[in-house]
């Protein structure tokens, strides 16, 4: 999916990841952080930004080195590059806030095995120039961040009655604790996918007469 290489305008490299090929809602990639760390909006947002950072930098370096890396060892080399940037992000998050580092816990290191990042390195960055690879990483990263923020906001709102730690629902609201537990991640993802597929189905139905598939 999504690996066809037509000559799209540069803006499309950026925009496709936001919605049409959203890594979470459409490609269903990187489900481990999507389900695990989105128990609050701030956790979802920070995880998204950390992933965005790794994605843009690894796409850049992979694209720069794409002619120097033999095909036979490309996956190992990509993993090496990704792991290095994840380590960098780990130190940077510790420097920004230890609290944040504590709440994201082991999931920062697990960005290494987020298949979204390796997927973009292999499917896009290793076949395109640096500028397109950066735009692709930025678009996919922003799409991923958007999805994690949506998940985190919904789960925090229903599960704790707060949004970014600020109480927004009245005290009378009894929080649905299940929403911040692992099960709540599946419920939220399922509900959001239902909503998005429904919207896309409706749009496709109305677009058929104009657009020739």
């Amino acid at each position, binding site marked *: 999916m999504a690996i066809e290489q037509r000559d799209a305008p540069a803006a499309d490299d950026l925009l496709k990841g936001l919605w049409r090929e959203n890594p979470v809602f459409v490609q269903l990639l990187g489900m481990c952080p999507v389900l695990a760390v989105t128990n609050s909006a701030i956790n979802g947002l920070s995880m998204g930004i950390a992933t965005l950072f790794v994605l843009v930098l690894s796409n850049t370096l992979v694209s720069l080195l794409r002619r120097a890396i*033999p095909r036979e060892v490309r996956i190992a*080399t990509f993993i090496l590059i990704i792991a290095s940037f994840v380590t*960098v992000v780990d*130190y940077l998050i510790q*420097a920004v806030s230890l609290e944040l580092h504590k709440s994201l816990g082991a999931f920062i290191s697990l960005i290494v095995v987020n298949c979204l990042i390796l997927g973009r390195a292999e499917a896009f960055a290793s076949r395109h120039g640096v500028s397109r690879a950066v735009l692709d990483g930025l678009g996919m990263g922003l799409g991923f961040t958007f999805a994690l923020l949506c998940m985190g906001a919904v789960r925090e709102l229903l599960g704790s009655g707060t949004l970014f730690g600020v109480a927004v629902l009245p005290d009378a609201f009894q929080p649905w604790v299940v929403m911040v*537990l692992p099960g709540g991640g599946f419920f939220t993802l399922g509900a959001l996918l239902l909503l998005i597929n429904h919207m896309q189905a409706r749009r496709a139905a109305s677009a058929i007469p104009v657009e020739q598939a």
Partner: protein
Amino acid sequence: MNRADVIATDSAPRPAWQMYRAMVGVGVVCALLIVAVYLATLDVIARNQVEALERAVLEVVPGAVRFAQRDDLGQPVYAAFDAAGALAGIALEAQGMGYQDTVRILYGYDPAREQVVGLRVLQSRETPGLGDRVETDAAFRANFAALDVRLAPDGAGLLHPVQLVKPGEKTQAWQIDAISGATITSSAVARMLAASAAQWVPILHARRAEFVAPKEATDGD
């Protein structure tokens, strides 16, 4: 995905040294990058850790404005002083097994009132929404505002060991109300506090006169 296979097989096999060159080269670049970032963030991270410890100590000892670490008692203890330089309390760490993983806490002991005056969770991986309520539940935290840890008359142990009771059944100042829905974690916190207090309160109380405000800190750090 077929495309990758096509690309991988359409070129002739390469000599091994090209692969070594690529991997070692990338490895060296990555290693340099990590070392550079590590060195650049080292100071900031160390400062963050000191600040986090400072915040925690000043939080578990109400009224304290500064503290001094003491390492010669077998585990670090933090003597916290109020603005007048008087000993406001002593903070120390305890840890034990929670529901998921080790839970580390820091609590403040006030030798003058013979009470635990504050408690904060330093590290926990307890279930969000259930076990982690030991950090957020106001009613549970209120247990540690003035928890009785008076010494027995002989000074060798506590008069009443710290005790966990069912939610809402706290009747004595040395009891801790558990949280329903977080029974294992709240009992773990109570257990590690009870064990640590039983061991350390007699020592700290006997040596309370030794904790004096360091001179150089009085001119403000």
